[in-house]
């Protein structure tokens, strides 16, 4: 297993506050990798750093062996790292299919003038994109709502739509920011299956942040536990789950029972 994403000595400060402190870790290709830690431990900041929303104060990020530190977010997405958000960021007034098609846009070759004049090559490409998008929509069981405004969808469907939209950018690595947030146990169970399916069918590496211990312990093949920007433990979830340091610092006594 080679490292798809490699983070070396990454730190980030907000003014004097150390949000992420000297992270060094590799995300191997093809795994489901989990990053867990209590509130304010720097999980989302890590994602924001990887996806280019922030530039790390120190340290470097490598993706597929190439440095991506400080690249603009859309370049990083085009390079193969897609992400979802903890608080959904859906294009509410656009239809479900348009949400997906926006994410496919950067691969579209039709130029502005071809599009304005609706030349045959443009129409052909539009048809291809639409077919692609419908395929994704069917995979995520959204076909009944494909032409509805996204804001009218129920919460669980929006979560699925966001994952589908991230996959539409044809990524190699998907960052999922608390995918189970706000889901009931049934939906969480479905989500676990979905995450495994996404990894297998799209041949992507999944890197997720989660509070939900059951999900992390069931789905992830490797986890990293952090607290206040420091790494506490890393490795196999079964081993990490029993690590006394983790139990004490993060899970507490009740956490072990979950």
């Amino acid at each position, binding site marked *: 297993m080679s490292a798809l994403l490699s983070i070396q000595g990454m730190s980030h400060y907000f003014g004097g506050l150390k949000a992420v402190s000297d992270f060094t870790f590799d995300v191997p290709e093809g795994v489901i990798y989990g990053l867990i830690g209590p509130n304010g431990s720097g999980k989302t900041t890590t994602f924001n750093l990887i*996806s280019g*929303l922030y530039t790390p104060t120190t340290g470097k990020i490598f993706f597929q062996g190439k440095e991506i530190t400080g690249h*603009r*977010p*859309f370049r990083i*997405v*085009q390079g193969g790292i*897609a*992400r979802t*958000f903890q608080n959904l*960021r*859906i*294009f*509410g*007034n*656009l*239809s479900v299919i*348009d949400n997906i*098609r*926006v*994410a*496919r*846009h*950067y691969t*579209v070759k*039709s130029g*502005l003038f071809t*599009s*304005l*004049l*609706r030349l045959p090559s*443009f129409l052909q*490409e*539009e*048809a291809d*994109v*639409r*077919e692609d998008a*419908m395929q994704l929509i069917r995979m995520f069981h959204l*076909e009944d709502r494909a*032409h509805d*405004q996204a804001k009218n969808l129920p919460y669980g469907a929006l979560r699925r739509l966001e994952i589908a*939209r991230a996959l*539409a*950018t044809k990524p190699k690595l998907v960052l999922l920011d608390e995918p189970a947030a706000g889901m009931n146990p049934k939906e969480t169970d479905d989500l676990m299956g979905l995450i495994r399916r996404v990894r297998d069918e799209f041949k992507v590496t999944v890197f997720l942040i989660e509070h939900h211990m059951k999900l992390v312990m069931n789905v992830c093949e490797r986890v990293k536990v952090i607290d206040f920007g420091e790494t506490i433990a890393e490795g196999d979830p079964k081993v990490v789950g029993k690590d006394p340091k983790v139990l004490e610092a993060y899970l507490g006594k009740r956490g072990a029972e979950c």
Partner: protein
Amino acid sequence: MGTIKLPRLLIAALIFYVVVTILSLDQVHILNGYFMVIINRSLIFVILAASLNLINGITGQFSLGHMGFAAVGAYVSGTITTLVLKLPAPQPGFWITGPIFIFMIAIVIGGIAAGLVGFLIGFPSLRLKGDYLAIMTLGFGEIIRTILNNIDYVGGPRGLLGIPKFSTFTTITLFTFLIIVLLRNLVQSSHGRAMLSIRENELASELCGIDTTRYKVMGFVIGAFCAGVAGGLLAHLLQLAHPTQYGFLPSALVLIMVYAGGMGSMTGSIFAAFSLTFLTEGLRVAFDNIPSFRIGTMDVRIGTEWVMVIYAILLILIMLFRTEGIMGMREAKLLIIEEKKKK
């Protein structure tokens, strides 16, 4: 986007019928010149409102100086046609019978000039998030007016006079039709969806791999280009271009059209451009006929400048009672390109 259900063909036929009727009545001089000027003005304002809608309604930016770009288009194309008219005619009467294509080219050059200025304004301000564009365009609108006031070559405060009357109902309708069709094609293409996604959520758009700066600038420049075309048409309709025509108040009027019609709805922009242009003329006539009266020792005269007061009230009423504008985000079916819905 929802649709309004009316038979597409019927509406298209009706619009065509109205256009042909006005055209033929104009040819036999049954309609008076005043009415034709208002009709032509409405069509020009349709271009202005629809193109500002692209910037403010579709891409979700905030431009306050749309008329500044119209001024660039008006002065550039007006200068070109007046210069060409002064050239010795290749054969007697050549410029007067007028090859219309010189006018067309001048209008397009005016549009391109406005687009270039739009790029110079848009590129630095759209790279940043926030209200920089509003500030820049507000300033630009005033700067362009001041510059035009001080360039003697284009008439300074007298304005650019003696522009040939090339804008006719036919040419204006043609340009308006073309621009509406092209804007419609743009919005309903992959590029248009990229612009819409910026309005919906800029961060998510960036993280869908969209170069948001590029698309914000693209929308802005296309909007400025269309405004330049509209300015050129207006100058060749009124046969003059004057700095006061392109100040803040006319820009605000276009802005009100976009908001009244519904942000993001081209149908709304078109509808509001027509109704507000006619309303402006109606109010102007009405206010001119109100005799002055005395309140205490003060003479009060309700002049035409009070039209803007009415619009301010109108805008407040819209914000209070119908925030999304007349059309909301809906489009008339005529403006929606149908997609085959395969299952």
